[in-house]
């Protein structure tokens, strides 16, 4: 049911459809939210929880695109809600439709369980392993790595991923194969393969070489298209494939 609060003109009100439910299922419900000049999708969700539905569940933290806690599906597309201005996703008079991120278990309403996403990050070998110190000792000096070197540039290309899950929720392969490591985890693996300080190249390449790894990617590129940081996980996965090809050709992998 659409309701317009008394005293507000219809054009001053946003129509919002919000998915309410849990792992067992759910449905969309409609809300009317006062439209404001400066308003993000997160502000809309906040207004509904604070003023209309006290038990609406959602997650956020930093509110400025640094923590990656607040991603949701907005009008059919995964986005950070904190940095998505309503005007950018809904034309005047158009409704907003907000769902929890796809490809992750729903906890309740708009909050998902991101544990599988981070577990895969670890499974893809997304943890730095110092080259010089397998025993845990810390090298005293900083590695000398010119910023213009090819490896530093390739490592930098994907290093700023904040782990928001937008690529993961947008990935068709994850939807088909729940074991698939996904774009963010392999973007991290590729970043480390290019990190001259890292000593676990071989283990990492093995970790991404299986059925759930880089060879499953069909390069549909939704990850790259939707990354809010304009990173390119699709190219990172291609880089892993290429490296695995040459390494196996030269017998560097089992």
């Amino acid at each position: 049911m659409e309701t317009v609060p008394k005293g507000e003109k219809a054009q001053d009100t946003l129509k919002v459809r919000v998915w309410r439910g849990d792992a067992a299922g759910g449905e969309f419900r409609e809300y009317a939210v006062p439209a404001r000049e400066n308003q993000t999708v997160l502000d809309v969700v906040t207004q509904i929880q604070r003023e209309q539905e006290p038990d609406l569940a959602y997650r956020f933290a930093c509110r400025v695109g640094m923590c990656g806690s607040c991603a949701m599906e907005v009008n059919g597309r995964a986005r950070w809600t904190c940095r998505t201005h309503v005007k950018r996703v809904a034309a005047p008079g158009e409704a907003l439709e907000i769902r929890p991120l796809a490809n992750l278990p729903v906890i309740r309403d708009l909050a998902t369980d991101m544990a599988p996403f981070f577990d895969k990050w670890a499974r893809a070998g997304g943890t730095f392993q110092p080259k010089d110190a397998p025993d845990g000792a810390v090298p005293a000096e900083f590695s000398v790595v010119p910023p213009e070197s090819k490896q530093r540039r390739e490592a930098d290309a994907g290093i700023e991923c904040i782990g928001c899950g937008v690529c993961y929720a947008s990935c068709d392969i994850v939807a088909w194969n729940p074991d698939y490591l996904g774009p963010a985890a392999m973007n991290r693996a590729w970043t480390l393969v290019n990190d001259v300080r890292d000593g676990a190249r071989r283990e990492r390449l093995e970790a991404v070489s299986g059925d759930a790894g880089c060879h499953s990617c069909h390069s549909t590129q939704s990850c790259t298209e939707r990354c809010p940081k304009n990173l390119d996980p699709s190219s990172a996965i291609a880089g892993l494939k290429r490296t695995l090809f040459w390494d196996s050709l030269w017998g560097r992998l089992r």
Partner: protein
Amino acid sequence: MTHIERRSTDILILGSGGAGLLAALHAKSANPELRVTVAVKGLLGKSGCTRMVQGGYNVALAAGDSAERHFMDTLDGGKWLNDQDLAWTLVTEAQTRIRELENRWGCFFDRNPDGTIHQKAFAGQTFDRTVHKGDLTGIEIINRLAEQVWARGIERLEEHRAIALIRSADGARISGVLLLDIRRGGFVFVQAKAVLLGTGGGPTMYKYHTPSGDKSCDGMAMALRAGLELRDMEMVQFHPTGVLAGPGTRMTGTIIEEGLRGAGGYLLDGSGQRFMHNYDPRGERATRDIVSRSMEREIQAGRVNAAGGLWLEMKHLGPEKVAKMFKGMVERCADMGFDLAGDRVPVVPTAHYMMGGVVFRADGSTALPGLFAAGEDTGGVHGANRLGGNGVANSTVFGGLAGDAMARFVPAEGELAPPDEAALDAAMGAALAPFGRRPQPLGPLRDALAALMWDKAGILRDAAGLAEARSGLDALEAELHAAGVADGMRGFNLSWADWLNLESLILISRAIVAAAEARQESRGAHWREDFPHTQDDAAGLHHTLVTLEEGQVRLSWREVAFTRLRPGQSLLTPQAAE
């Protein structure tokens, strides 16, 4: 009898910022047999403020710089209110920790063209010593630490909010922590041999504030309730440039970085005139506290724009250059609907950091055996004002040291002590109380708190305003304790979370106001319109102490121990000090 799940661990860490994650990694590395558990209000590595660090990490590395010089800058910035032994630990241990962050945990900091570590200039320092990763240093640090934690058999209690520190039945030590499992909406008591308080501060009780929106001073509030002392709570740092995007948006108050003014950005009043040179010869490049106070004076004089704030303008530097130099900031402003490179952005000063906090020792230990603390929950390192770049150094240095200390403490002195069951029941009862009352929207209460603290205990303070703040907070506390939350779905109930947040914020606001009323001078971040001068340090400098006794905030003083230097002295030779 309220149902409660009981578990135990060797070391329980509250918080997953720089302090919590370093403590977890250090404790686990020192003794892999120990069970280490990290409990966090949100998701591991995503909550809190270390992640939000833009600037970087102060550390003396380069030839010509020294720990002594960093120490002197820190004391000068802190107006000699610092605990000097803590400040010395900060500057020396930072030299170890930065190497560990880069070489062991994988942080990849920016380099000079020759491949060596780059250190940039930051306000209030006599040497360019701020290590960074672009203008997103915090993300690099926390991402690398979090992925190390995921891979190391450290237990995670995500979306578990700490409610109360529970003493042992005999009261002699900590027994554990009462937590709320946010997803289930049920209580968990985690008994532990050692506990780290690393939840972070964050002055989010102010109308305009920069910290992560999930912060609510829970750690300091729990410490007060557990009988610990908080020091220097009047010292709240305000940052000059928060975005003023209007009411009803979480964007308002969020920071746009200091470097914009450093690069030559203008602050303009409502009519488009620059004003900073009326206050300080350095203009827009004056220190954070001076710029914030000057802006507040302009705002109080009514020289404001339609939004009620001032303007930040960069376009005279060339829009293309600005877009290149400050890519992240330009993109962020664009997402908010503002053109930073080619137009003006409405700004207002914004509450940023709390220098005060729990009294602690350099190894993280506190007055309560078994309880350790590190990071913004603690006070003493920064004195009356924090240098930009010393915040993340503080949390990672002292988090790591606390992790080492807890790994030593647990086998030697740790025990799983039975909890004070009455205290546990009382804490659960207090947290559940709002469900027994008639529900009401908490928005008006939150807005009233934010306005009260901003107007009466903010950037420019005086006795009359602080007295109003004190009585206003009493009234708000009474109102909160009469306010209910609708019962029903307790799992992931953000209204209940809001109520609990407000309870912490009001208590810590009372601590801030009590300390601000008591300090009848202006020092560092604390400015009294009725006492605009800084007292003579030589006459003896004291820091404030706040405790909670039978629900009443009590204030006392303790003399600052000048353990290394007296005001006016320097560790640098006259030549080196130039």
